């Protein structure tokens, strides 16, 4: 019988923090500026410049650590990781090795196999590097230091994951927590969340770890899933052939859907870590910890439970709506404004998610005034607009955040409650369909539906069907 293998996965996740300024200087962290415009002597490594820690970074790291049930190193400091590369202006990165700010935490994930706890080894703060741009035409490389010094938190998990599904669930959980805390938008495509996958395989039942590889350059959940599957197969194949897995760093190529070795353990660098003498060790005061703890937001689980309780939503709805803090905030405001939580939930989960998916957008991109959706819901409930037209208005709200009543009026989407106009249409329909009228009189009451439909068509859907029914019966 063929051997059964188990995949063992641990993750190193970098999360870019959404602070206004960089970790060691006052430069803006804003993405997309002209090259080297968000720079100063500190983040370009000019001689004589010195780093000064941005307190916000520590606050964010503490908040994340607390949310992930970590122990906090109340006495913590920064270390220098020394390596030469042009995107690294000092040729050392200020990071944390010896006393990382958080350690020994855990997160609970849910997959189709149920709940599972993933342990977190440590979290540390560090600075990002600049960006190298290779100019093939000029045969030279250019450096943009705008990103140099943007704050990062690296979250190192224990090797507790066994499947790609668990990995995705863990990343989603981490992303959700960061978003609820408002410390990062965690976008894999834009690099504000980056995951390196450490993977090894072993025979099922073995308690020894296999040799692991580290996979880099994974820019989407899809890439992560494919890379895990590919690497598992590659390693099993090696073992089956009686060969050894080499401990190495591999780079994922999204176009080729395969990975190649970057460097092996033998040429692993010696980073010569040592405490950064330019930054004093930090003693995190109790009051600060308490302050941060008291400011922790209501996270997804609590919020979902509250929605069931407070708004009477089904568990499924509550869970979907709270997947992102943004969606939950939109829901809550809309529900409170229109006084109809179930309808608010239906609109956001139904049309909302459908439209987002259609446009390839994320819940985070849903950006409109909740009052507008609330007004729309009230209009529908008040019979001012029919469902079909309301969907059109909602699409427009999602797109341009239009004021729904004004828009409905301008586009002529409001229900016609003027009985004269409806009466005209009824008369017309009756005149145009004498055969059907006859059928009705001969007892075929079912044809009334057809006649209603015809009237509605004439009214371009804007008539109150009840009123149409009533008028038809009267005239027949």
């Amino acid at each position, binding site marked *: 019988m063929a051997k059964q293998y188990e995949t063992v996965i641990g993750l190193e996740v970098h999360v870019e923090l959404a602070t206004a300024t960089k970790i060691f200087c006052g430069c803006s962290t804003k993405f997309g500026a002209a090259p080297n415009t968000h720079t100063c*002597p500190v983040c*370009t*490594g*000019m*001689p*004589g*410049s*010195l*780093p*000064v*820690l941005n307190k916000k970074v520590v606050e964010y790291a503490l908040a994340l650590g607390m949310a992930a049930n970590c122990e906090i190193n109340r006495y913590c400091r920064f270390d*220098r990781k*020394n390596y*030469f590369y*042009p995107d690294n*202006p*000092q*040729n*050392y990165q200020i990071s944390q090795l010896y006393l990382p700010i958080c350690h020994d935490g855990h997160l609970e994930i849910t997959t189709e196999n149920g709940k599972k706890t993933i342990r977190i080894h440590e979290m540390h703060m560090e600075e990002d590097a600049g960006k190298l741009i290779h100019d093939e035409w000029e045969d030279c490389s250019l*450096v943009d230091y705008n990103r140099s010094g943007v704050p990062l938190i690296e979250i190192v998990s224990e090797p507790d994951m066994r499947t790609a599904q668990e990995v995705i669930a863990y990343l989603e959980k981490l992303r959700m927590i960061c978003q609820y805390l408002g410390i990062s938008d965690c976008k894999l495509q834009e690099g504000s969340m980056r995951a390196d996958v450490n993977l090894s395989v072993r025979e099922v039942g073995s308690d020894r770890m296999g040799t692991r590889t580290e996979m880099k350059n994974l820019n989407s959940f899809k890439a992560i899933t494919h890379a895990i599957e590919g690497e598992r197969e590659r390693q099993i194949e090696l073992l089956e052939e009686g060969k050894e897995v080499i401990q190495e760093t591999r780079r994922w190529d999204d176009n080729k859907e395969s990975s190649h070795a970057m460097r092996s353990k033998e040429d692993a660098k*010696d980073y*010569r*870590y*040592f405490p950064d*003498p*330019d*930054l*004093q060790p930090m003693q995190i005061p109790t009051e600060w910890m308490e302050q941060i703890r008291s400011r922790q937001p209501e996270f997804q689980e609590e919020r979902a439970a509250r929605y069931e309780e407070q708004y009477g939503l089904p568990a499924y709805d509550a869970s979907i709506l709270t997947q992102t803090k943004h969606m939950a905030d939109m829901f809550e405001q809309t529900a409170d404004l229109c006084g109809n939580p179930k309808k608010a939930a239906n609109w956001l989960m139904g049309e909302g998610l459908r439209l987002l998916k259609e446009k390839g957008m994320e819940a985070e991109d849903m950006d409109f005034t909740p009052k507008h959706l609330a007004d729309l819901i009230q209009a529908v409930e008040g019979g001012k607009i029919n469902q079909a037209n309301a969907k059109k208005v909602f699409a427009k709200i999602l797109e341009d955040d239009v004021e729904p009543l004004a828009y409905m009026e301008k586009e002529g989407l409001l229900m016609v409650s003027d009985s004269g106009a409806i009466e005209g249409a009824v008369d017309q329909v009756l005149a145009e369909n004498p055969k059907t009228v006859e059928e009705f009189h001969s007892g075929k009451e079912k044809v009334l539906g057809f006649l209603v439909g015809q009237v509605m068509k004439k009214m371009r859907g804007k008539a109150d069907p009840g009123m149409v029914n009533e008028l038809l019966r009267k005239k027949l």
Partner: protein
Amino acid sequence: MEEILQMSALELSKQIRHGSVSVKEAVEACKKQIQTSEPQVHAYVSMDEKILAHRIKEVEEGIKSGRYTGPLAGVPIAVKDNICTRGQKTTCSSKMLENFVPTYDAQAVKQLEDAGMVILGKTNMDEFAMGSTTETSAFGVTRNPWNPEHVPGGSSGGSCAAVAAGEAVMALGSDTGGSIRQPSAYCGVTGLKPTYGRVSRYGLIAYASSLDQIGPIGKNVKDCAALFEIIAGHDSKDSTSADVPVESYDSLVSGGLSGMRIGIPKEYLAEGCDEEVKKALADAVHTLSKNGAVVEFFSLGMVDYVIPAYYIIACAEASSNLERFDGVKYGYRTPGATELHEMYKKSRAEGFGEEVKRRILLGSFVLSAGYYDAYYMKALRAKGLIKKEFDKAFQKYDCILAPASPTTAPKIGTSLSDPLQMYLSDIYTVAVNLAGLPAVSLPCGMDSRGLPIGMQLIGDCFQEKKILRAAAAYEQLRGEFPKAWAKEEK
């Protein structure tokens, strides 16, 4: 002109502020002296006439308008070339930074400019402050104004020689392991290494970040106290800067010797210390104790560990601090490289001198995997214990008195061939940096060859007042120390 050179910095500023001497005249006096002695001394690496002319005008107007009223307004000062000056070359006396022009001023420079001082030029030093003789400069040696066959000491040799030769009224130096105090002793001038954290390091091109400190060099103790008051103070741009108030220079130097308890580590006068240095120190002890101070010998522990701990820590930090000099962003880039790593290697091999490379290698070694605990961690522990030894001593004494160096200035060309011997000569100065203490070095005699002998008074952290008070009192009792430039003219 000669009259101006005779004045202390405080006296000169007073005359300038009263209008009896102009800023231009003060600068001209220094420039005349530069013309006379610079060909022999070579204290400066660069002077920018245009910037200087502009600054003279600015300060003259500033004094007239009442913008500059401080005690050193109008005084010409030389600045060590590892302290960044915006728009003016700052080379660290290295080929690596031969054409480097900073885009910003060091905080200390900003403070002395805000006080209305006039920067004359940038002074020579051991490359990246690594050396004790100013012979490792890529731009030629500086010679001792007392005797051009001898070194001025280092690494702030250019700054100390400039003051000794009358080529500047005062100077800024930096002290990582004695780099202000030892050349001050060799050149017969006064230099203060402040408590670690007193003066912002922002803009000081780092050698060893946990030990570096900028300090004043002058003709006497009071001048140094006045410059110290100007450059000291908390700076939010330097995380290691201390938020401890600084007293005015007048109060820093007043109080006299009466009741002061001064200890001398007997380990410092054991083998290795020159007899003439010992004799000068003994004379100083006699003067101090005759005038109200209680001076006694005591045993200071950990003395044998000071040199190894210092060189491990300093080189480790230096190896990392100097990584940024890679030919990518600024500074020297080799013309002969076709790919990245070749460019790194060649740029650094060609841009750095021998001593710098030696210390980078030493530092890289002690930080490398497998050696970190055995060397660096152990050195840090030794540093902690050395500090404790001083803490103990300061429970008993107000100041510690010690030679600034075991010998007077050696002859040029005799030190670099034996780096280990050169490192060992830092024995009396490096412990002060490891413990973060303040210490002032001032002349206390002459050897038989006519070279100055210096002594240092070491104080507890942030107790500059105690050492400056004792130093000022001693200075008064000692009397006017001869001037190198005056001697030359005879």
